C-alpha cells in the first residue's frame, strides 16, 4: 500500500501553487481584447422604475454598451430560474429577470449593465445611467411579509407566500402532545448569515464567433449546473456550445452553488459585443447579492412523558426566502431542514410546517449546513430547555432518548432512514476528551477572574452525501444527484482523474488522489485530479452538502474497481493465465500458485502499447468511468462541547474551549478532515456570537454591508480546538465515508448558545449573542 493512500495525513498537492501565488482564480484570468462590466444596482429595497435613460452613459469615454432588461427581452433571453420546488409545497416561483423589468425588489437588485474598455470607465458610466425610481413600501421581516396588508413583491405570488409545506404526521403529533406529561415550548430566530467566501464572485466570458460558442470562467461550486441553466434555460443555445470553467475557487460555503444573473449577463454581453467581458464583484456587491443563508422565525414545542422520554415535536417555521427564489430556492428551508428534526433521538411523532416568505431582501439559498444547522439548533436548544424545566440532567435526558446503537437502520418520522451510528459512544468520548469532569474546577477559576463560565453540548446529526437521485426527484429537485468520475491513463502511467465535484478549498486534488493511490497501488505523484471544467469533465453536480467524498469519492473508487476488472483481463493475457486466477493486491497482479507478477504500471503500459492483444476479445486502453448514485444519504453525527466565559461588566463572550468529537465514518485524510471541522466550527461560532445580517426594517437598506458592520470571526476571537473521532463506517458506499464539511457549522451554534445560557442561567438568547444582547440578558435575569 502506498504511503499516501487512504488514511494518510498526506500533505496537499494543491498547496504549492497557493503558497507561491500561482493559484489561478477567476479574477486572475484575462483574455485578449477583454473589456469590463459594471452593474447599476438598485439603491432601493422596493421601487418601480419610472424611466431608465442610458444615453449619457453610452456617450461616456470607453463605453462599449449599456444594456438593460429591454435588451434581454429583445434578444429572447429568459429570466433566471429556480431549480427546486418542494413536493407538496404548492410553490409559487416568481419570475426573476436578470436585469430589472420595471421593478426592483431588493437593495442590490440588478438594473443595468455597462461594458467599457476599462473598469474605471465602466464604473464611471454606470454612475451616469439615469434611473428614475418610484419607491414603494418595503418589507424585510418574513413574519410581516406574510401578514395582511404587507407590501406585495410579485403580482403572481399572493400574500408573498411562496411555499407552504408540511412534513410528518400532524394528527399523530397532536395525539402525542395530548398525552404528554410535560410540554416545553420556545420561540427562536435563526439569524440570517452572509456567506463571505474570501474570493468575491467573478466571471469572465468569451465568445468565439467562428464556432458560435462561448466560454465562461466563473466562481462556481457546480459549473455543469451553471452551464445547464445558462444554455438551456436562459439563452436557449445547445449546452455543448457553452463551456463553463470554474478554476481555483476561493471558498464557497454554499454561496457559489446558485447560478447568478451576473453570470448570464456577462456571457450574453460577450456574445452581443463579440469581446471577452470580465466582471469582478466588489465586496460591497458580495454583501448585497451573494445568496444569504438561514433566516427563520420558529415556534417549537416538545412533548415529554413523565420519564423524560420524548413523545412528539411540533415546529412552525416562517422562512425568509428573499426577493426571488434562488437556484435551490426552498430546499434548505424544507427538506434539508425538517427531515433532521428528529436529531439523534427517538421522537415518535414529529410535524413541521414551513411557510416561505418573499421579502425585499437578497435571495436565500444554501449556506454551509443549509437547513441542518437550523434543525440542530432547534433540537439541541429545546432539549436543553426541557432538561432545565424537567429537572433531568441534560446529558441524562439526551441518553434517555438517543436512538440506540442496535436500532439501525432507524426510520424517523420525518422521512429519513439513519443508516448507522453510535450516539452513546460519541457522547462518552466527547465527555472524556472535553474533560467535562473538570468543568466545575475551571468554572471556579473563571469566577475568581470575574468571569462567568458556561458549558454547552450539541449532539448533532446531519444527512449529507447529497443525494440519492430518486430522493432528489421525489422531493422536487430539477436535477439528479449522482456523481461522476472518469479515469484516463497515459501509457507511462500518468493518471488523470476527472471528477464531477468542484473543490473550493476542500483539497480534492489530494483526497481523491489518495483514493486512487490506494485502490490502484500507484504513487500519488502521478495522479492528477481535474475538476470544474465542462469541457473536460463529462458531467457532474458539484460540491455541496458534504457530498464530494461520499458520492464523488465513491464514484472514483468504483471507477478504480472497473479499471481493476479490466486490468486483470490484460494481466491474464500478458501472464497467459485464466482471468479468474489473477489476483490484484498492493499494486501488483499475480497468478495464484505461480511466481508470475506484473505491476500496475506494466499493465497500464501494455494496455496502451497493445501489440499483441486479441482485439476481438480485449480492447486496448484502461480508461473507465462511473456514474455513482448513492442508495441513501450519509449520517455523520457527533457531540460538540463548548465552554465560554462571559465578562459581567460588558457582556463580552469568549469561547475558551471547544471540543468536537465526530463520527464521519472512515476518514481518507485526517489532516484535511480536521481542517474542515475547524473551519465549520468557526462558521458555527460566528453564527452564534458574531454574524447577523441586518436590514433596516423600514427602508430595507442593508445595514451590514461591509466588514465595518458585519462581524467576521477573526483569529483573536477564537481558541484552538480539540478534535476527536469515533467511527461507524457508512454501510452503503464503497469507502464507508460520511462527509465532514458542514458538521462544525451544524453543531457549533447550539453548543455555544447552550454554554451561554448555562453561564447566565437564562432560558434562551437569540443569535448572534452580541455583547449588548448578553448584557441586556444578564440585567433582565438579575431583575
Amino acid at each position, binding site marked *: 500500500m502506498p504511503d499516501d493512500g487512504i488514511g494518510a495525513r498526506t500533505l496537499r498537492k494543491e498547496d504549492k501553487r497557493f503558497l507561491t501565488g500561482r493559484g489561478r482564480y477567476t479574477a486572475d484570468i484575462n483574455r485578449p481584447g477583454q473589456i469590463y462590466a459594471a452593474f447599476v444596482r438598485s439603491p432601493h429595497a422596493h421601487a418601480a422604475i419610472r424611466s431608465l435613460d442610458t444615453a449619457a452613459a453610452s456617450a461616456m469615454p470607453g463605453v462599449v454598451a449599456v444594456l438593460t432588461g429591454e435588451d434581454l427581452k429583445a434578444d429572447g433571453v429568459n429570466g433566471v430560474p429556480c431549480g427546486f420546488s418542494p413536493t407538496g409545497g404548492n410553490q409559487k416561483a416568481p419570475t426573476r429577470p436578470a436585469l430589472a423589468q420595471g421593478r426592483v425588489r431588493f437593495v442590490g437588485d440588478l438594473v443595468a449593465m455597462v461594458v467599457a474598455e476599462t473598469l*474605471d470607465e465602466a*464604473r*464611471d458610466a454606470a*454612475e451616469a445611467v439615469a434611473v428614475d425610481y418610484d419607491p414603494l413600501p418595503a418589507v424585510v421581516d418574513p413574519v410581516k411579509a406574510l401578514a395582511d396588508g404587507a407590501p406585495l413583491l410579485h403580482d403572481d405570488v399572493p400574500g408573498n407566500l411562496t411555499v407552504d409545506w408540511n412534513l410528518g404526521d400532524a394528527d399523530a403529533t397532536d395525539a402525542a402532545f395530548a398525552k404528554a406529561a410535560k410540554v416545553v415550548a420556545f420561540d427562536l430566530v435563526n439569524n440570517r448569515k452572509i456567506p463571505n467566501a474570501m474570493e468575491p464572485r467573478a466571471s469572465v466570458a468569451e465568445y468565439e464567433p467562428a464556432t458560435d460558442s462561448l466560454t465562461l470562467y466563473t466562481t462556481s461550486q457546480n459549473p455543469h449546473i451553471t452551464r445547464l441553466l445558462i444554455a438551456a434555460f436562459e439563452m436557449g443555445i445547445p449546452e455543448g456550445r457553452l463551456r463553463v470553467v470554474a478554476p481555483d475557487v476561493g471558498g464557497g460555503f454554499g454561496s457559489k452553488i446558485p447560478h447568478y444573473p451576473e453570470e448570464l449577463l456577462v456571457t450574453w454581453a460577450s456574445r452581443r459585443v463579440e469581446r471577452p467581458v470580465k466582471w469582478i464583484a466588489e465586496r*460591497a456587491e458580495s454583501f448585497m447579492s451573494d445568496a444569504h443563508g438561514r433566516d427563520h422565525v420558529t415556534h417549537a414545542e416538545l412533548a415529554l412523558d413523565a420519564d423524560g422520554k420524548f413523545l412528539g415535536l411540533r415546529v412552525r417555521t416562517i422562512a425568509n426566502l428573499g426577493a426571488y427564489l434562488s437556484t435551490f430556492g426552498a430546499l434548505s428551508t424544507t427538506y434539508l431542514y425538517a427531515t433532521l428534526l428528529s436529531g439523534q433521538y427517538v421522537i415518535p411523532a414529529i410535524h413541521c410546517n414551513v411557510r416561505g416568505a418573499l421579502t425585499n431582501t437578497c435571495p436565500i439559498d444554501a449556506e454551509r449546513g443549509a437547513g441542518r444547522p437550523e434543525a440542530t439548533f432547534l433540537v439541541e436548544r429545546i432539549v436543553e430547555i426541557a432538561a432545565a424545566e424537567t429537572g433531568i440532567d441534560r446529558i441524562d435526558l439526551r441518553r434517555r432518548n438517543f436512538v440506540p446503537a442496535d436500532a439501525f437502520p432507524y426510520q424517523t418520522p420525518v422521512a429519513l432512514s439513519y443508516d448507522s451510528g453510535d450516539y452513546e459512544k460519541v457522547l462518552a468520548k466527547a465527555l472524556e476528551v472535553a474533560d467535562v469532569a473538570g468543568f466545575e474546577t475551571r468554572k471556579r477559576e473563571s469566577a475568581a477572574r470575574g468571569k462567568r463560565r458556561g458549558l454547552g453540548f450539541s449532539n448533532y446529526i446531519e444527512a449529507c452525501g447529497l443525494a440519492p437521485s430518486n430522493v432528489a426527484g421525489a422531493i422536487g429537485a430539477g436535477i439528479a444527484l449522482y456523481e461522476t468520475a472518469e479515469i484516463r491513463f497515459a501509457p507511462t502511467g500518468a493518471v488523470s482523474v476527472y471528477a464531477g465535484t468542484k473543490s473550493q478549498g476542500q483539497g480534492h486534488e489530494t483526497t481523491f488522489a489518495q483514493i486512487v493511490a490506494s485502490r490502484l497501488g500507484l504513487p500519488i505523484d502521478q495522479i492528477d485530479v481535474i475538476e470544474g471544467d465542462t469541457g473536460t469533465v463529462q458531467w457532474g453536480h458539484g460540491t455541496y452538502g458534504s457530498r464530494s467524498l461520499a458520492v464523488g469519492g465513491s464514484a472514483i473508487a468504483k471507477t478504480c474497481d472497473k479499471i481493476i476488472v479490466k486490468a486483470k483481463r490484460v494481466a491474464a493475457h500478458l501472464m497467459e493465465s485464466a482471468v479468474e486466477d489473477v489476483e490484484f493486491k498492493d499494486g501488483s497482479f499475480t497468478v495464484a500458485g505461480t511466481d508470475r507478477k506484473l505491476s500496475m504500471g506494466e499493465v497500464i503500459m501494455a494496455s496502451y502499447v497493445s501489440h499483441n492483444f486479441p482485439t476481438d476479445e480485449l480492447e486496448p486502453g484502461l480508461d473507465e468511468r462511473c456514474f455513482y448514485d448513492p442508495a441513501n444519504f450519509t449520517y455523520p453525527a457527533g457531540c460538540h462541547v463548548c465552554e465560554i466565559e462571559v465578562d459581567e*461588566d*460588558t457582556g*463580552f463572550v469568549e469561547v475558551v474551549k471547544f471540543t468536537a468529537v465526530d463520527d464521519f465514518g472512515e476518514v481518507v485524510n485526517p489532516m484535511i478532515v480536521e481542517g474542515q471541522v475547524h473551519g465549520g466550527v468557526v462558521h458555527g461560532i460566528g453564527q452564534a456570537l*458574531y454574524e447577523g445580517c*441586518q436590514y433596516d426594517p423600514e427602508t430595507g437598506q442593508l*445595514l*451590514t454591508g461591509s*466588514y*465595518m*458592520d*458585519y*462581524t*467576521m470571526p477573526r483569529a483573536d*476571537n477564537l481558541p484552538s480546538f480539540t478534535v476527536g473521532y469515533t467511527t461507524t463506517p457508512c454501510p452503503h458506499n464503497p469507502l464507508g465515508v460520511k462527509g465532514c464539511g458542514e458538521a462544525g457549522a451544524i453543531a457549533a451554534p447550539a453548543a455555544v448558545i447552550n454554554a451561554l445560557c448555562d453561564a447566565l442561567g437564562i432560558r434562551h438568547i437569540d443569535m448572534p449573542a*452580541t*455583547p*449588548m444582547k448578553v*448584557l*441586556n440578558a444578564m440585567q433582565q435575569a438579575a431583575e
Partner: protein
Amino acid sequence: MYAFDYHKPSTLDEAKALLAGGEDPKLLAGGQTILPTMKQRLASPSDLVDLSGVAELKGIRDTGDALVIGAMTTHATVAADATVKAAIPALAGLASGIGDPQVRHRGTIGGSVANNDPAADYPAAVLALGATVKTTRREIAADDFFQSLFETALEEDEIILSIAFPKPKRAAYAKFDNPASRYAIVGVFVAETGSGVRVAVTGAGQEGVFRSAELETALGQSMTPEAAKAVKVSADGLNGDIHASPEYRAHLIPVMASRAVAALA
C-alpha cells in the same frame, strides 16, 4: 476611485503651495482612511498631496515636560518608540491597539487627529492629555481642536506639524472594540495631570470625542476603579448603531474608565 492628480512635495512650503493651489486638494498622510473612502467613491479630491516626503513632519522628541510627535509618525512607530514608552506609556499602548498591524504601519497620528473620526483612538489621548496641535499657522489647544464628527478647527489649507503632549503623572486608555470594524465602541482615556484629572471618551459621542465631567469629578475625588464604575453616565447625546445602543455605550463608559484607572501607569 475618481481620477485625481498626485503630488509628493519634499518641503513644507511646497506642500503648502500645493494645498493652496488645487481645486479641491486633500492631504495624504498615510491614506488608511481617505483611500478606502475614495475607493468607495465617497470622496473625489482633485489632488492628493502626499506628505510622506516632508522631513519636518517626522520625529519624536522629549522636551522635558512634553512629548512632541511629528504629524507623519505612524502608529507602529509611536507604539514601539522607546521615548514614547518612557514618557507616556499609555500613548504607546493606545497606538498599539489602533486598527491592525498593516494599518498601523501606514496610518499617522496627524492623519488620525485631522480626520477626527468619532470612533478613532487618538482624539481621546489628545483631549485627555490636554495636548497642543501645532500647525502651519498656529498652535491649537485640544479643547478647541475637536469640533464635531470629522470636523476640527483646522482651516482648509492648514497642515498639522506635530502634536505636543504634556507629560501626565499617570495615564491609561481602555477601549471596547466594535467587533466588526475594530474601531472603538467606547474608548476612555484617563489622565492624571498637574492640573487635575482629565477624562476623554471616544467612540460614544454623537459629536465625536468629549470630556466626561462626571468622571473627572469622581476621579478627582478618588482615583479608583470603583469610583469610576460608580459613575452614572447619561445616554443622552450618545451614538446608537446595530452594535451598541446609546444605553449600552452609557453603560460601557464607566466600565472602560474603571479599567483605565486600574491600568494607570
